[in-house]
């Protein structure tokens, strides 16, 4: 078997294009993913017209002073503002394609917010040429405006609560620099009670005062619930997130496992299917199995070659990714186990493909065509499709090695779930596809 292995390595060495692809593939993938993970998307250029420029942008709410210009500055963490001098110029820049969008702060924003009668409105214009970036800008601006709204709402609610407390209990209130003494319901009730006591017992005014006192008491008692109501208005929907299933792997770490699993699949499937089909294409199969090598031995050699090459390539790829992403090298033995067992399962599948197709081109094409849908199906999340369809997808994913390989690599790389289950699953698939490949060799000569 070792001589066959040596022969296949010699053939690989004589196929510079294939070897170049095998070497370049992980490097390019590693670099691309590394850049994708280490750098966020560039800040989109957004035209920014500040109508508040040159005038006071300070709003006084509940005794607090809010600088709207400072609040707006938060937006610039997510966008690259192109400052313009007018609303018209901002819109023109969007139309000309100079910027992705325009954000316009109107002149009356501060006044409207201060009045508490009308909402302050900011205008946003989009450039729809690039939907991905448009979505990004839209989401970014919406998120920032919501944040600002949240802060303002809390302050408005706080001021409203203070006013209600003033109505209920009375006290000092300052407006436009002048101080007022507000009586309040509580003190009014007290004054009315004293006035009632001084009236004659049979006086008809006494009954009238009783009604006023009862109203004041009722109003004061109900106003005590207003803080809860206003708190709800200030934060209409509260979100409590609870994860019922799934690990705690970050998107970055999962992306590494995914990239490695995809590479492992592509390389192993193509090599195993191609090298087995090549034996028939070169007419060497009959000569080999005529007592020189057993059919099972031939399959084992191809599996070892394909798995060995892909494991090496994937380790190189992981080393490349390690330059961009923190990988726990202390878990290296687990990586190796996941890679080796996953590669063997893919190799067995590749051998079945090579045995069934009996032609290098057909084998390569089928292997390639299988790869992408398998990866896609394995990544369909629950809830994204109808429950019945999701069950079908899970079943299909379970009979091919991609999903368990991804699970194994995720567990090995990120300590996400147990490694034993996926490895056992892969071992079962290796045996099943190995047996299928062996059967397929019956029609191989």
């Amino acid at each position, binding site marked *: 078997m070792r001589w066959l292995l040596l022969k296949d390595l010699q053939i690989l060495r004589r196929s510079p294009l294939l070897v170049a692809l095998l070497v370049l593939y992980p490097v390019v993938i590693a670099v691309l993913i590394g850049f994708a993970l280490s750098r966020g998307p560039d800040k989109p250029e957004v035209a920014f017209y500040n109508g508040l420029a040159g005038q006071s942008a300070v709003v006084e709410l509940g005794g607090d002073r809010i600088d709207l210009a400072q609040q707006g500055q938060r937006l610039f963490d997510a966008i690259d503002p192109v400052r313009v001098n007018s609303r018209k110029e901002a819109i023109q820049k969007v139309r000309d394609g100079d910027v992705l969008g325009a954000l316009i702060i109107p002149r009356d924003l501060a006044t409207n917010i201060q009045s508490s009668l009308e909402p302050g409105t900011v205008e946003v214009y989009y450039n729809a040429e690039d939907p991905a970036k448009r979505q990004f800008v839209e989401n970014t601006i919406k998120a920032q405006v919501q944040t600002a709204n949240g802060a303002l709402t809390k302050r408005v609610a706080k001021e409203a609560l203070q006013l209600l407390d003033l109505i209920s209990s009375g006290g000092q209130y300052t407006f436009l620099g002048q101080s007022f003494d507000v009586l309040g319901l509580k003190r009014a009730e007290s004054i009315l009670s004293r006035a009632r006591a001084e009236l004659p017992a049979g006086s008809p005014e006494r009954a009238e005062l009783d009604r006023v006192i009862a109203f004041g008491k009722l109003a004061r008692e109900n106003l005590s619930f207003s803080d809860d109501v206003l708190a709800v208005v200030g934060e209409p929907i509260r979100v409590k997130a609870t994860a019922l299933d799934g690990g705690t792997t970050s998107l970055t770490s999962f992306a590494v496992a995914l990239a490695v699993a995809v590479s492992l699949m592509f390389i192993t499937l193509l090599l195993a299917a191609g090298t087995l089909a090549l034996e028939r294409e*070169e*007419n060497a199969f009959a000569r080999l199995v*005529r007592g020189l090598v057993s059919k099972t031995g031939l399959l084992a050699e191809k599996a070892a070659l394909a798995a060995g090459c892909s494991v090496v390539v994937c380790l190189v790829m992981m080393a490349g990714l390690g330059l961009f992403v923190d990988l726990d090298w202390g878990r290296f033995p687990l990586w190796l186990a996941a890679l080796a067992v996953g590669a063997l399962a893919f190799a067995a599948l590749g051998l079945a493909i090579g045995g069934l197709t009996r032609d290098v081109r057909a084998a390569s094409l089928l292997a390639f065509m299988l790869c992408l849908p398998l990866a896609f199906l394995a990544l369909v999340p629950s809830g994204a499709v109808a429950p019945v369809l999701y069950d079908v997808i899970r079943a299909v994913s379970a009979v091919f090695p991609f999903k368990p390989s991804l699970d194994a690599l995720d567990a090995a790389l990120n300590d996400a779930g147990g490694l034993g289950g996926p490895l056992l699953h892969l071992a079962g698939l290796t045996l099943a596809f190995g047996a299928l490949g062996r059967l397929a060799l019956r029609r191989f000569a």
Partner: protein
Amino acid sequence: METATVTLAARELVKRYGDRVALRRVSLSAGPGELVAVIGPNGAGKTTLLSILAGIQQPDEGELTVLPQGVGWVPQQAALYGKLTVEENLFLFARLERCPDPRATVDRMLELSDLRERARDQVSTLSGGNRQRVNIAIGLLAEPEVLLLDEPSAALDPRQRSRLWEFILRLAGEGTTVIYATHNVQEADRYANQLIVLADGERLFYGSPRELEQEVGTTGLDFEEAFVEFLHGRGH
């Protein structure tokens, strides 16, 4: 017939592919240095017979009654790795054949096939004739008593064919039993000691080319015409 000088003998071989009978009770034997040509129309069962003799397929009935020390198998299409050089192909199969001294065996085959100068060339760059010589050399690596060749000169030009037959005759001269299937009736007439004529899996004739001519009984015909006449006479 099956004496001490017989290197390969088969009795009443039958092979079926589903309902189709590819071989119908075919027997043969061959001795050292003998050249046996298997001829017949397309689908006669020539390749099936050779593949059973080579051990690639098992007969449904019948058996090989005399098994040689080794059987070299040369398939119709060269079973070689195009990306490997001539020498590397020979080394690979010498090792797989477990030759005790692969280097010496490869050197001997390079001499025998007259391909020493092309030893470092990739097989994919060789002409069809040279490729067939490597193909045959691989069949000879284990120094088999019997060499089986399936259409060895197919797709070769006359010069390449001539060089190939020089090579095969040299092997037979050294005592190797050569059994070959061919469509080229002239090659059978010219080089074979014995002919096996197959049609629809049935052995119609087993003897020398001269015996075939005598059986046809016509004079003034060349061997190919006599062969066609023979088939007509047998309803083929």
